[in-house]
């Protein structure tokens, strides 16, 4: 079956410090060859061999990554197509860079379950597994949909929707002048159109910049802030949120009253669990207990465990220590502005290999150190991220980039004085790509818009 070449992250993020980006399809080897520098061109090597080299963007010659590349030619591969697997460092940033590069040079981002689907369609997986494949597609799609839905009220979808509305109004105006040439609608002037296109392009650009800084909503590292009541959990949360780094979403229908907040700590996206619980119960002493902390710990990739510098360790503290044992923990000793009543040796004994940071969140001390510790943990690959939904963000970024490119081409067309219906081709493409970002399908929207915006008749 003739299918295009797809790429995606094949390993859970950060696992073993190594990530695998899989590229599958007729063009797989050719695409990776464009960005790979090594002893031999990949097109010349034997099948099922591994090669050391570097990846670089041929446009800028900027070296991106040191990699090991496996070349596997059809049919003895997972998908029965040509497959190239790029092994790179497992950190979020490097995975993103490598995937971006592969997508830029001709691959398409794989849909949920698509490698497995291809494996099946190409006869690699036997019949008995077909049902499982269908379930997989369904499950992954539902999940992606859930993410998309949770973003419906989010900043991103709001912005994208506004951009699309701008575009569709301009498009309807242009279409009317094309389909009803004698109608008394003024032509959309080149200047007006140029302004509109430039405005939309710069807004997409801005979106992409914020995406880079991680300010766009994305699936972060699930993070729990735990500790006794009054230890400063709420203050810590506020200090993260205060810097306007957070976007709050209310995911309905998951757990009652569970609110998740996204913050960005030095490029590491954190998804803070049960912040509502923290906020609600901070003042109502003793309402949140050890039990609650325990259950939160189970869901988390990263635990920010807080103890009070001003107090001796209590039964409750030890219970939380016990629950957090063997998990990825950053210990925060808070309230250093008050007198020390805590025995630091006991804390160190409980967490011999974990970072312990002294802070006074109230006085804004130690927060830099804390952020640094989190970033280090993350980028060294020690933290393992459960969800692979990171890809859905890569998808957004990729689509936005293509939309930006389409707007760019529209603008070039206007400068070249191309007829408006040619320019419309690029504008429409941008509009469709933006639609994909927020999961709106291409229907008869344009036709509807034309008839609601203009008065036409015989």
């Amino acid at each position, binding site marked *: *079956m003739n299918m295009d070449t797809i790429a995606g992250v094949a390993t859970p993020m950060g696992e073993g410090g190594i990530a695998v980006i899989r590229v599958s399809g007729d063009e797989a080897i050719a695409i990776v060859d464009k960005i790979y520098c090594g002893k031999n061109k990949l097109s010349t090597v034997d099948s099922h061999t591994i090669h050391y080299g570097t990846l670089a963007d041929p446009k800028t010659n900027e070296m991106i990554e040191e990699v090991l590349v496996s070349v596997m030619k059809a049919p003895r591969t997972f998908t029965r197509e040509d497959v190239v697997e790029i092994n790179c460092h497992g950190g979020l940033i490097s995975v993103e860079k490598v995937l971006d590069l592969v997508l830029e040079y001709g691959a398409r981002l794989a849909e949920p379950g698509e490698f497995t689907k291809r494996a099946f369609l190409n006869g690699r997986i036997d019949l008995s597994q077909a049902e499982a494949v269908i379930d997989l597609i369904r499950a992954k799609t539902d999940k992606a949909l859930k993410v998309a839905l949770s973003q419906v009220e989010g900043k991103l979808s709001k912005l994208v929707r506004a951009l699309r509305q701008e575009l569709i109004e301009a498009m309807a105006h242009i279409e009317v002048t094309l389909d009803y040439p004698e109608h008394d609608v003024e032509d959309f002037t080149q200047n007006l159109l140029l302004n509109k296109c430039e405005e939309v392009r710069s807004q997409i650009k801005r979106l992409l910049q914020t995406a880079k800084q991680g300010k766009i909503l994305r699936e972060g590292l699930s993070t729990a802030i735990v500790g006794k009541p009054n230890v400063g959990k709420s203050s810590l949360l506020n200090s993260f949120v205060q810097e306007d780094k957070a976007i709050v979403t209310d995911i309905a229908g998951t757990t009652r009253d569970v609110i998740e907040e996204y913050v960005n700590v030095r490029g590491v996206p954190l998804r803070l669990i049960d912040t509502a619980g923290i906020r609600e119960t901070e003042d109502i002493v003793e309402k949140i207990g050890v039990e609650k902390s325990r259950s939160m710990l189970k869901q988390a990739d990263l635990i920010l465990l807080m103890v009070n510098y001003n107090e001796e360790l209590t039964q409750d503290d030890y219970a939380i220590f016990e629950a957090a044992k063997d998990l990825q923990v950053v210990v925060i000793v808070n309230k250093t502005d008050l007198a020390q009543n805590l025995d630091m040796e006991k804390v160190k004994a409980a967490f011999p290999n974990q970072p312990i940071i002294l802070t006074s969140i109230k006085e804004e001390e130690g927060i830099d150190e804390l952020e640094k510790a989190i970033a280090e943990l993350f980028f060294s690959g020690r933290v393992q991220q459960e969800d692979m939904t990171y890809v859905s963000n890569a998808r957004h970024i990729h689509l936005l980039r293509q939309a930006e490119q389409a707007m760019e081409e529209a603008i070039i067309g206007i400068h070249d004085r191309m007829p408006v219906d040619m320019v419309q081709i690029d504008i429409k493409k941008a509009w469709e790509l933006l639609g994909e970002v927020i999961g709106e399908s291409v229907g008869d929207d344009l*036709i509807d818009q034309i008839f609601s915006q203009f008065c*036409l008749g015989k």
Partner: protein
Amino acid sequence: MNTTYNGDDFDVIVIGAGHAGCESALAAARMGCKTLLLTINLDAVAYMPCNPSVGGPAKGHVVREIDALGGEMAKNTDRTYIQMRMLNTGKGPAVHALRAQADKIAYQSEMKKTIENTPNLILRQAMVEELIVNDGVCEGVITNTGARYKAKAVVVTTGTYLRGKIIIGDLQYESGPNNMRPSVRLAENLKELGLELVRFKTGTPPRIHKSSVDFSKMEIQPGDEEPRAFSYETTTAIPDQLPCWLTYTNLETHEVIQGNLHRAPMYSGAIEGTGPRYCPSIEDKVVRFNDKPRHQIFLEPEGRHTEEMYVQGLSTSMPEEVQLSMLRSMTGMEEVKMMRPGYAIEYDSIVPTQLWPSLETKLIEGLFTAGQINGTSGYEEASGQGLMAGINAARKVQDKPPVILGREEAYIGVLIDDLVTKGTNDPYRLLTSRAEYRLLLRHDNADMRLTDIGYEIGLISEERYKAFINKREQVAQEKERLNNTRIKPENEEAQQVLRETGTPELTEVIDLAQLLRRPEVNYEHIHRISPSPVELDEEVREQVEIQVKYDGYIRKSLAQVEKMNKVEGKLIPSAIDYTVISGMSKEAREKLEKIRPLNIGQASRVSGVTPADISVLMVYLEQFHRVLTKASE
């Protein structure tokens, strides 16, 4: 029906001789089928009950496509028009569109003459009351005069005649268009046979007497000085074109309408049918867009030998005297004489998702439908469908697979795919914006796109095909020459031409194709710099210029088409049962079971079917395929 008698046997019977029916019957007869064309009234062959014009954006494209496939509408228009204009000339070549003002009477008599002189084709006046259907196969028709005609395929093109009802103010009566007899019994029969019908509505404006209009107060709209033709075979133009005239409604007109809204059938609930969004009545326009101080009104002659004029923009079903007040409120029409009032007409049409893309009904084999009965509006949309239904009915008789045009191939393909895949909620009109690949579906290249198909079907003559092949080769050779001829900065002639056009002079070697891509440069300039070794006619030059100049955009569109064709090529076996596919949403299962798409591409266009559903479907198909293979081993 009391007694019946056996009439002749036919290969194909076409019910209705409007624009769809004429094309259907001509195509079938020309393809060698013994064809019977039946109409309620022989004086209504190819009748234009609404506007006296053919073409315009998308519609004009269809007329050219009809011509490239060997249909009649283009030639018939070229022989009878009273005005020809190329629209959108200030825009890109994809939206250039030819539009003719028709002479209604001449159009009819010319078409009737062609039909009467076509071998294998019999034209007869009769009202069909029943289809003969046995075991799900349509085998003929029975007329009100008792004739039983047998046929291997039947094409129904009833336009607005099916249970037609005219509404003017409080007045309502059963009628076909313009007081023709409606077809009531056949509507009931279609329903009895199990076809799902819906009620649509359309309307037409009043007609006025030319001599009662003061044209000095209006803006003249003349035809082109050098009129182009719709048909690729037409070589001569008609001299003496007649102009149209432009005036406007005003606040007084709107007051007349607002003051009489309680008498408007549109708002009193008298009309149950769904009207077209794209051509609302004037009362609808005034209500929905009440901030607009005026609306355009064009006065169009209905023909050379009549004083009647069509008032375009004033479609209405208001009471007669209100219509007259509306007319007289407008500049230049203070003393106007109204000859016929405008009216709304309701009619039955079938839900088009009941059709295969061949326009054969899924329910009854050998039964095809085309034109307004399929939920469209417009003469051109009707003709395009009629042609395809006629072709496919003939091919069915001849045991050949149907011809289905792709969305990337023709507006006719877009039209039919939209109808059978998505259906329509209001009378469907083609727009260029409905085509994803508008740039490929140009008015100028309809012959390039479709002549091969027309020839293969047998509707394009050897002689014409030869001329077409020759043109295609010339275009290819000239493009090749432009790509390979380099011009140096030392070429003084070239620099002179560039100076004249106001584009920068050459500083390095450039090929002619690159030069032609500059916005200011056209083929004539290229010709001056480096003339073609052979004399090329205007059509070839036009093709070369467009193909070279917009090469970048054309490539973009072609890349999209290639992507689409990958999924269009994945066929879905007809035996598939969607209701048992687990993992697919309920909505998708139900829709797909109803539409029964032919391939994955069509399936993905069904509304409510998501990409995930398509993935599941593909996996299921593979599974289905393997079971079949295993069973056959």
